[in-house]
């Protein structure tokens, strides 16, 4: 394997960022998919554009500005979910498109800047990942991993059944806000590599692909992160050699993995159903001993 790619400092930075994005995006995305808010990441991505625009206008770091604005946007969305019962979707739509319009507006007001700069944030760009960007991405990714792994039982409970979680004494509202804030932080982590418009794909599609194979939440989490890291590294390397945009490459690769796993999962599901039917037929015997090993074998093979 030719590793000359690692001789370039910008590629080292890009690959590091890519790995972090591959870990964090599915790690947050799994909770969004679990609570059936798969498109929340997309909304936050739109809001983050205003942050990028403001960063250019005020000559501050667009990454930190985008983080601040998208965290505020995520909290607003969560508040709308609590209080706005009837017109919640309309309020969210205004937040999304207001955020996008704000980004375009601020960028154009910024002295000596053009929409070309915005494009690198919208669709991702490897060569422009700076030293400070990498520092910011590392810090933010550490926060995301800490939350999504450290609080996995609490976040699982709240995302699975909010009403029940309340009765276990969990601080449901605080955990919902934390999920939204973590998603917002992930959007800005991923922004430089896949771009704001495609970031949601990396949150949702690896989780959807992993679900084709897994039966447990833990396995889904592990497989989704493995897929995330594989496609971000694969996409970054491909984009270096073939001169194609990294964000688009990564997203298309992810969708490819999804299609592949779905195709693989169909015979797997059939085999599982057959094993279950056999176990049911032998119910007079000992179903506990027949059912579990028979259904466990296929996952063992495909588990990453």
């Amino acid at each position: 394997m030719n590793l000359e790619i690692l001789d370039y400092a910008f590629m080292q930075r890009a690959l590091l960022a890519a790995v972090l994005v591959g870990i964090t995006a599915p790690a947050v995305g799994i909770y969004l998919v679990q609570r059936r808010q798969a498109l929340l990441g997309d909304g936050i991505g739109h809001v983050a554009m205003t942050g990028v625009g403001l960063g250019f206008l005020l000559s501050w770091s667009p990454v930190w500005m985008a983080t601040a604005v998208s965290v505020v946007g995520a909290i607003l969305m969560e508040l709308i979910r609590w209080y706005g019962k009837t017109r919640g979707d309309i309020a969210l739509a205004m937040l999304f498109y207001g955020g996008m319009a704000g980004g375009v507006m601020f960028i154009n007001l910024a002295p000596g800047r053009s929409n070309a700069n915005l494009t690198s944030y919208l669709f991702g760009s490897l060569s422009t990942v700076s030293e400070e960007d990498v520092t910011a991405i590392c810090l933010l990714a550490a926060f995301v991993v800490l939350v999504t792994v450290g609080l996995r039982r609490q976040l699982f409970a709240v995302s699975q059944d909010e009403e029940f979680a309340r009765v276990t004494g969990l601080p449901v509202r605080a955990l919902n806000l934390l999920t939204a804030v973590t998603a917002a932080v992930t959007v800005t982590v991923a922004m430089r590599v896949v771009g704001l418009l495609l970031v949601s794909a990396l949150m949702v599609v690896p989780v959807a692909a992993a679900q084709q194979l897994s039966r447990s939440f833990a396995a889904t989490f592990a497989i989704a992160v493995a897929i995330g890291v594989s496609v971000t590294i694969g996409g970054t390397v491909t984009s270096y050699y073939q001169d194609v945009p990294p964000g688009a490459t990564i997203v298309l690769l992810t969708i490819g993995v999804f299609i592949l796993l779905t195709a693989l999962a169909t015979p797997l599901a059939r085999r599982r159903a057959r094993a279950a039917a056999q176990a049911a037929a032998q119910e007079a015997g000992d179903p506990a001993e027949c059912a579990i090993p028979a259904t466990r074998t296929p996952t063992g093979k495909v588990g990453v």
Partner: protein
Amino acid sequence: MKDGGTRYEPGASPVISLRGVTAELGSRPVLRGIDLTVNRGEVVALLGANGSGKSTAVRTVIGQVPVTSGEIELFGTPRRRFRDWSRVGYVPQRTTAAGGVPATVTEVVSSGRLSRARFGVLRRADREAVQRAIALVGLADRAKDSVNALSGGQHQRVLIARALAAGPELLIMDEPMAGVDLASQEVLAETLREQVAQGASVLLVLHELGPLEPLINRAVVLRDGCVMHDGPPPQALGQHALPGHDHVHPHAAHDAEPIRTGLLS
């Protein structure tokens, strides 16, 4: 307890107490000042037609629906200051235990143990309690299966195991028998009987008394957000005579195919 366990000491301290509770959904009044008490060791059924406010009443108790006036106490503590949630097991009204991502029976039931686990760390005793709760509802052989692979009645059994995982003294169940096949109904009735025999108090929202009838000490009937009846279960009249009974029967007939149970009410 073979004879149905109808024993409770009148005058014992209440575990749930609602006084003059009113609540609104949107701006529509749903509860118009209800009083409801569940004493220690008592099994109380909350009955009424769809829209009579029974689910809302239960959801005010757990704090999911805010009250506009009135008082709610759990174990003698005002609900706002109540923190001892491991004493309460809750079974929400659900047709499924699944979320948007696959999860095993063990993973879902483990959530119910979080009220006893400090910082969400499950120790060995906690894991054993989770497996015991799963065994109680007869799903030990499915513990590692995805909940997506279960039937409707088995979903309900998972939800009840989740409520039992913390070893609660009070069980609050919202329509636990809705869409449950006969085999699961029997498992659930037996599980509940054991809990009551061990001294648990139970508040049950039911559409009809059904197979749980012998367990129930007292019935409270709601209509349009008001208490219409509070006393012995209306056995003589039969549940069909309840106000507003609309003859929906989510349970399969005794001779029906078990496959039908996947169709949830």
